[in-house]
């Protein structure tokens, strides 16, 4: 199953992922996204690509 991994060190909390896919990403109190499973690949691909800091990675 596809997972999304968030690199907390790289994430700047821009929140672009949450805007692209609010059903999957929810920023926590630190401004870092929590990922709600299951992940629909079609939905998260755009978000992963759109991340301005490259903090999101898709893993199989």
């Amino acid at each position, binding site marked *: 199953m596809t997972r999304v991994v968030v690199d907390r060190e790289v994430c*700047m*909390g*821009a*929140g*672009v992922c949450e*805007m692209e896919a609010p059903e999957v990403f929810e920023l926590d*109190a630190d401004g870092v996204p929590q990922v709600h499973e299951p992940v629909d690949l079609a939905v998260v691909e755009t978000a992963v690509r759109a991340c*301005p800091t*490259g903090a999101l990675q898709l893993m199989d």
Partner: protein
Amino acid sequence: MSSVSTPTLDAIDLSDREFWGAPPEQRHAVFDLLRRESPFAFFAEPVVPYIPVGPGYHAVTRYADVEAISCQPALFASGSGAVSIADMPPDLNEFYGSLISMDDPRHGKIRRIVAKAFTPRVLEGLVGNVQAVVDDVVARARQRAADGDGTIDVVADLAAPIPLRVICDMMGIPDGDRAMVLHQSNVILSGGDPELVEDEELMVTAFLKAGEVLAGLMTRLAVERRARPTDDLTTALVTTEVDGERLTSQEIASFFILLLVAGNETTRNAISQGVLALSEHPAERDRWAADPGITRTAVEEVVRWTSPITWMRRTATQDVELSGQEFPAGSKFLLFYGAANRDPAVFADPHRFDLTRDPNPHVGFGSRGPHFCLGAHLARREIGVAFQAFARELPDLEVCGEPARLQSSFVNGLKRLPARLTGLR
């Protein structure tokens, strides 16, 4: 467009203030040439009174190079100044640049504190606010035209008050201080435009004074919010902690200036030049009015097309290589976002204004990297709500004169844009 003369490489000087007041077609013709023939063109620095003149800078005009520089912040730093070509004195630099002219680890720490106040979810709570502000601004503009000769100034009556009121609401700025906030942020981002800074010799003094006045307001508000917290952003700034650390008074004051200035000038110029672009492309204007469903892509195209911030600077921390060319440590690079946003390698038919362009990976909010615009969601929301309201409430708006352009290389802005409401006669 037919009046655009063909530029030659030798005649180009991006440090010439006159160039920045020229019509966009003319500037884009220059950037097309640079991108094609000299993608790291070197220019002498403009002279700023009382500031030592630096070694010059490279103008980066290709999308791929802008991206490569932005996403390698360790090699291309912001700390020696991202918003001025000259190296400003460090305290000045930090005060006016705040997060923008800062590198990790400090940048990361402060960005994480303020990012909490800018998440899409927090901003969701502001939708009603943005809508109410826009509706009121639009109604007042119509009233002003009706009370007068049927004309308005798109900048003063529509584009300026929307972001000003939204950001002031967010920060909890009292009504009585708002006109002052607008004026001082205009001065800071004037780039020395003669209309805003009368004497170029006094440019730096004028910037300093504007900053001092804004910092004074922030200090006053910070004291008030510490005593009586509210749900505004200022309260969040004075109370939020990351790893047990709070922002210092100095950090709060300079971030406050950044928010006021960045939150006002950018969105204002996207809106005013968006209105101009729609008036120059009536078919696109009709398309958006007929189908609010295209708002998401339309907003992105307005930002790509207008690219309100023309450049940010990066400085090489060591010898670096870009697209096979080598540059010594200390080299300055200006990332020309508007030029990257018209790069045919990324955007098909880049000089076409297409409200359904998709994908549209423009760098109008900056490119990939830690300095990506913090207020991107807010700006998108403001622009989307504004243009939908214009289509609904001001369908008879017609630009009726030449725009007055700001002579600034840093902000692609309009000072005035005359329009008339034709439905009023």
